[in-house]
């Protein structure tokens, strides 16, 4: 970590005592670093180091276990799909919230945050009750031959649920700041409504949409509480990666659990990195 002190805090010339007009920098940075290191960095370093007790071959062995592979595939594949589908949904809700005034708008606004505020175990329980074969939505779906609960589809539904606030809340402020001027300019220049939306509004929202995608994905891929109730957790079919980690830990296979955890973290960061790269590429003026 390279948290160097600012120039003004380094011991300097003897001419002037270099001090900031606002006191408390050293104290606050010290508290922050201590807090960060003790609670986050040191424990996370265990995650980075422990898998290698198994050796590289051992780590690869853990990760190529068919059950682990199936779980990783389910977690990442479903999380990607859920985050992707959350994008249009988030955009739609954000649009409705920003552009229109209608009775019940505040309620709709508050509803968006609920998946974020609701404890995950409660969400899991609720979704299971709702989509169970005898549930409010499960029963009609069953009638048309769709089973959600205890299948990979249930995992997908739960992952969408937790992603909603991220998809909406990242786009909403950008859409609000955007205003309608650019669209109106497009209209005066002869653009149709669809052209204005596709060529003016959507490109302006693209970076925010990507951020929302990244956040919704990161949340969904690691999600545990909301998913395990509805997933059914059948090995090779509807068992998510975090659950495999829990099982390994319960069997005291710390290194194996850490290996799966590290792989998950690495893959998540890869996805976030990719969205970041796409964002940079989308930035005006960067395109050659």
């Amino acid at each position, binding site marked *: 970590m390279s*948290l160097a002190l600012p120039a003004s805090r380094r011991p300097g010339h003897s001419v002037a005592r270099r001090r900031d007009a606002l006191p408390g920098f050293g104290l606050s940075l010290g508290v922050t670093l201590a807090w960060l290191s003790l609670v986050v960095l040191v424990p996370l370093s265990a995650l980075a180091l422990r898998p290698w007790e198994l050796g590289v071959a051992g780590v690869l062995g853990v990760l190529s276990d068919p059950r682990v592979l199936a779980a990783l595939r389910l977690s990442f594949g479903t999380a990607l799909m859920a985050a992707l589908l959350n994008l249009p949904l988030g955009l739609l809700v954000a649009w409705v919230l920003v552009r229109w005034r209608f009775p019940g708008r505040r309620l709709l606004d508050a509803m968006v945050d609920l998946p974020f505020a609701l404890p995950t175990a409660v969400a899991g329980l609720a979704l299971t009750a709702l989509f169970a074969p005898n549930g409010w939505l499960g029963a009609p779906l069953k009638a048309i031959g769709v089973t959600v609960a205890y299948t990979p589809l249930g995992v997908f539904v739960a992952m969408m649920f937790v992603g909603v606030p991220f998809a909406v809340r990242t786009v909403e402020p950008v859409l609000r700041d955007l205003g309608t001027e650019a669209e109106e300019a497009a209209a005066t220049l002869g653009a149709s409504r669809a052209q204005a939306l596709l060529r003016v509004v959507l490109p302006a929202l693209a970076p925010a949409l990507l951020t929302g995608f990244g956040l919704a994905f990161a949340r969904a891929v690691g999600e545990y509480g909301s998913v395990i109730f509805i997933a059914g957790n059948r090995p090779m079919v509807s068992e998510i990666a975090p659950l495999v980690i829990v099982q390994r830990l319960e069997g005291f296979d710390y290194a194996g659990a850490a290996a799966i955890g590290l792989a998950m973290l690495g893959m998540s960061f890869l996805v976030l990195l990719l969205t970041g790269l796409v964002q940079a590429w989308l930035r005006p003026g960067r395109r050659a």
Partner: protein
Amino acid sequence: MTIGPAARDPAVARWAAGTLAVLLLTMFVALPLAAVFTEALRRGWGTVMEAYADPDAKAAIWLTLLVAAIAVPVNTLGGIAAAWCVAKYEFRGKRLLVALIELPFSVSPVISGMVFVLVFGAQGWLGPWLQAHDVQIVFALPGLVLATVFVTFPFVARTLIPLMQEQGRAEEEAAATLGASGWQSFRLVTLPNVKWALLSGVLLCNARAMGEFGAVSVVSGHIRGETNTMPLHVEILYNEYQFAAAFAVAALLALLALVTLCAKTVLERISGRRGEIA
């Protein structure tokens, strides 16, 4: 926002989109919530009260409150310190620091719990030493607190940093030229300027601390009456097919989420009026 005709969508499109948005949110958000309360009340109030009177449930509620009572103040102090140094000073590595503060948000709850098992568990780095000295961290209160602090780590800092950055440091500098000490300036100028946002951050932090499941599940050991928090208690009841009781406890947690959301909305309106942009 007043929308001129050029940027106004046709009425049909508005109705269709609006209805779709309401439908989707209802399906995804309102219905699950309604399901919790319906399931909880299916067997009447008596069952609900019975579920709360159960000694294990009481222990779980008490433990949840205790964990939050430790984790929230710790993260509030840490969050204020972090926001102060990030928002008021320029230094190298600041972006990295902010990224690290936000890191716990992008880590799976299960991994958040696991890291403490890797350090303090029976086969953890410090496991043998802890055992020799008869100190229990994992499968005990300290582990629950640590995991909770980890997952709720960014809440306060995240709500404060953008607001304090926007407010800048001119008011604190003005206070200094008027003779205020650092502590006076913090207490009389900085804190009042962010108090509603701070409260909002603390509430969110608290809601997550009380509702956290994945991380505490890993470090708890699920000892009934001892290391089960409310969300874990819900899971146990559910797995034992005590559905009514499970939903009763879940309803309590859902109520907490609803109250938190209402309070947050109110706080945002207050702070918006006072010139705080939360």
